[in-house]
C-alpha cells in the first residue's frame, strides 16, 4: 500500500515539475528555448534533407572540384566536386544519429549496469572495477583503437564513442541508487517483500531520470565532437556517408585553398553542439536544482 502511495507521490512530483517547467522555464531560460528550437530545426532538416534543394551528396563531379560558394553550389564543392551544401544537410542525419544514438545507448547501458551495481552488492565490486578500468583509458584513444581495429562503419563509430561514456553514467546512477536505497519508502517496499526488479523499476528508476536526461545532452554534444576528431585522425565514419565530422576531416588538407569545406559543416556542428549544451544546462536548472548547483 505504502509503496503505491509513494510511487504516486513520486509521479505527482514529476508532474508538478513538468508543469512548473511549462509555466516558468521557457520564460526564465530563453536560451534553452532557442536551443530547443534550433535542435528541432536540425532534426527537421535531417529528415527532410531530400526536399531542401539538395543533390546527390555522394555524386562525384571532378570537373567542378574545389569551387567556392556561389549560385550553383551554395556552399561550394569539395575536392571530388561533391556539393558541400547537400553533404552538409545530409550530414546532419549522420551527426545527429551519432549524437543521439551515443546518448541513448550510453544512458541505457549505463543505467542497467548502474542499477545492478548499486543494488546488488555482489556485482558491485566487479562491475565498478571494470568501470574504473574503462574510465582510466583515455576515451578518444579507446575510440580510435576500436574503430581502427574493427573497421570503420557508422555502427562501430557510434559504439566506439558510446563505450567510453558508459562508466560516467554508471557512476551517476550508482550514486543515486546508493542514496535512494536508504530512503524509508524503499526500505518499506523491501520489508513488504517486493521483488528486486520491481523495486528497481518502481522506486529507484524514476529518481535517476532527471539527472540522466541532463547527462544525455552532454554525451550527445561530446559524441558529435568526438566523431569529427576521429575523422581528423583517420578513424571516423566511412567517407561514403557524409557526416559533419568527416566532411571537415576530408577537407583539412584544403583549409587554405577551400576553407568552405570546413567552414559550413563546422559552423553547423558548433551551432548544434551549442544548442544541445544550452538545452542541457536549461534542463539541469529546472529538472534537478540539486545537481544544478554542483555542476
Amino acid at each position: 500500500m505504502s509503496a503505491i502511495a509513494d510511487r504516486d507521490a513520486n509521479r505527482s512530483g514529476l508532474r508538478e515539475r513538468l508543469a512548473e517547467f511549462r509555466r516558468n522555464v521557457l520564460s526564465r531560460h530563453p536560451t534553452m528555448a532557442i536551443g530547443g528550437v534550433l535542435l528541432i530545426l536540425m532534426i527537421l532538416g535531417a529528415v527532410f534533407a531530400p526536399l531542401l534543394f539538395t543533390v546527390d551528396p555522394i555524386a562525384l563531379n571532378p570537373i567542378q572540384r574545389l569551387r567556392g560558394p556561389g549560385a550553383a553550389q551554395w556552399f561550394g564543392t569539395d575536392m571530388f566536386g561533391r556539393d558541400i551544401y547537400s553533404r552538409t544537410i545530409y550530414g546532419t542525419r549522420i551527426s545527429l544519429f551519432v549524437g543521439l544514438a551515443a546518448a541513448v545507448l550510453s544512458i541505457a547501458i549505463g543505467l542497467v549496469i548502474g542499477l545492478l551495481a548499486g543494488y546488488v552488492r555482489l556485482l558491485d565490486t566487479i562491475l565498478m572495477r571494470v568501470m574504473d578500468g574503462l574510465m582510466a583509458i583515455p576515451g578518444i584513444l579507446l575510440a580510435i583503437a576500436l574503430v581502427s581495429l574493427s573497421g570503420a562503419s557508422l555502427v562501430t563509430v557510434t559504439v566506439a564513442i558510446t563505450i567510453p561514456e558508459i562508466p560516467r553514467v554508471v557512476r551517476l546512477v550508482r550514486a543515486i541508487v546508493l542514496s535512494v536505497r536508504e530512503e524509508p519508502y524503499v526500505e518499506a517496499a523491501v520489508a513488504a517483500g517486493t521483488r528486486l526488479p520491481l523495486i528497481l523499476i518502481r522506486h529507484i528508476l524514476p529518481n535517476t531520470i532527471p539527472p540522466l536526461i541532463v547527462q544525455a545532452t552532454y554525451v550527445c554534444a561530446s559524441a558529435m565532437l568526438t566523431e569529427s576528431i576521429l575523422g581528423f585522425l583517420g578513424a571516423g565514419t566511412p567517407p561514403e556517408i557524409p557526416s559533419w565530422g568527416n566532411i571537415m576531416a576530408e577537407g583539412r588538407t584544403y583549409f587554405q585553398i577551400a576553407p568552405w569545406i570546413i567552414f559550413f559543416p563546422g559552423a553547423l556542428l558548433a551551432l548544434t553542439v551549442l544548442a544541445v549544451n544550452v538545452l542541457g544546462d536549461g534542463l539541469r536548472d529546472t529538472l534537478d536544482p540539486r545537481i544544478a548547483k554542483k555542476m
Partner: protein
Amino acid sequence: MFRSTRRALLFAAALAVPAMVLAGPQPAAAEKVLRVIPHADLKNIDPIWTTAYITRNHGYMVYDTLFAMDANLKPQPQMVDTWSVSDDQLTWTFKLRDGLKWHDGAPVTAADCVASLNRWGKRDGMGQALMNVMDSLSAADDKTIVMKLKQPYGLVLESIGKISSNVPFMMPKRFAETDPFEQVTDMIGSGPFKFSKDEWVPGSKVVYLKNEDYVPRSEPPSYAAGGKVVKVDRVEWVYFPDQTTAMNALINNEVDYFEQPANDLAPILANSPGIVVEVNDPVGNMGFARFNHLLPPFDNVKVRRAAMAAMKQEDYLLAAVGLPEYFSTCYSVFPCGTPLESTAGSEIVKSAGVEEGKKLLAESGYDGTPVVIMQPTDIPVLSAFSLVTAEKLRKIGMKVDMQAMDWSTLTSRRAKRDPVKDGGWNIFHTWWIGADVLNPMAIAYSGDPAKGWFGWPSDADLERARTAFPLAKNVAEQKVLATKVQDRLYAIGSHGNLGAFFTPVAYRDNVKGLIKSPVQFFWNISVE
C-alpha cells in the same frame, strides 16, 4: 619506464631553477643542415626486412650498392670497379672499387657483399628469381665476387642494380647474416651518410651525418648511379603527419624541403616567394584497381573486363590528383616513356566509358553479386580511387559494398583468399611507383595464383611469357615478350589501369642540385 620517470624528475628540478638561459645554444655557424619533410615516417631501418619506400630511401643514405640504375634505366657499376662475363654467360666476376670502407672503419670485402646478396635473395622477388638460376656465389679474394649460374640469365645486372624495394644494399657480413625475417640491429653501411642512431625518434625525426670517408665515383650523378658527393654536413628528416602544417612550415622557412606535398597544395606553395615546386620523378606512379580473381563476380573474366571498360582514367586522375599538370593517361601497363611501353590490347582501357561497361556487363551474365571494395581512408589517393570505382560500378549496374578501413587492415585482408563472408574481398586500389613495374618480372603482373600477387590471376600464357623474359637474348626479344605479357594482362582483365600520376616536390630556392629520379636521393644537394 625508469628512464622516463627520471627524465620527469629532471624537469621538475629544472623548472625550479630560476636562472634558466633565455636564448638557446647557437648551432655551429659553419654546419650546413638540410631540413627535410619526408613522405612518410621512418618506422624501421632494415631495407631488406621491409619494402617500405621510406626505408628504401633510408637505405640509400646509409648503404651503397654494387650496381645502380642510371637515367637511361641501365645498370651501371657503383661499388664495383670492373666486371666480366664468361663467354657461356654463366660466370660473372665483379671486382670492388678501392677505398670502400664501412662506417666503423673496416674495409668492405667481397665476403660482406656475398652475405648481403644472399640475405636480399631470400626476401626480394627479383632476388629470388636470380637465386633460382644461381649455382654458386662466392668471394674469390677480398675484392672479387664470383657468381656462377645454372643457365644464362638476362637480368643479372638489372637485379643487383635494381633501384627500388628491396634494393640489394651491401652490409657488413655480421649484419648480413641476420635472419632475413628479423631486423638488423645496427646501421653500419658504406654509404655517403651515417645514421645518427642516438638522434632517431621513430615517428618524428631521423638524422644523417656526412660520411667524411666516403669516396664517390667520378661520374656525374644520374639516378642512383654516378658519384654520390655529399654537400651538406647533416640531413634531418622531420616527419609531419599533417599536410597543412607541413606546407606552412615550408612557407615559414622552418624546413628546406617537402618531399611529397599533396598535389592541391602545390599552387599555394608555388605562389609563395622563395619556394620551387617541380616534379622530380619522371616515371611517375601507376594507379591500380586490383580484382580478386578467385571470388564471384570477378572470377568471371567478362565481368572483370566490363569493370575495366568503365574505368575511365581521366575520372580517376581528376578525382584523386586534381591538377592536370600532375597526371597523364597511360594505357600501357609498363610505364609510359619507358622502353617496354606498348599499346597491345589496350583498346579496352582507351575507349573506356560507362556505356561500354554496361554493354559488356550485360553480356557477362552478372548475377547481382555485390562487389566488396576495400577503401583505405587513411590514404587520400586510394580513398578517392575507391570512391570513383564505386560510382563507376554502380553506373554500369553492379551492386557495391564499400567497406572503409585503414591501410593496415587492408594489407592483411587482401592476403585472404576466403569467400567474402569469411573476410574476403573483391577490389582494392593501390599504386606502384613506375620504377617498380618497368618489366614483366614485377610481381604485380604475375599470372600464377600460387605464387602471385594478391588478386591471384591465373593464366598459363602470361606466366610462360614472364618466365621467358629474363632469358631473352636481346632487347628486341624482350620487347616481344613484354608485349605478349601486356596483351595477356588486358585479355584476362588482370587489373584496372588507372593512369599515371606524378608527385611534386617543393623546396626553398636556396636548395640546389636535386637529382631527378623516381627515388629521393640526398647527395649532390647543397644549401646555399
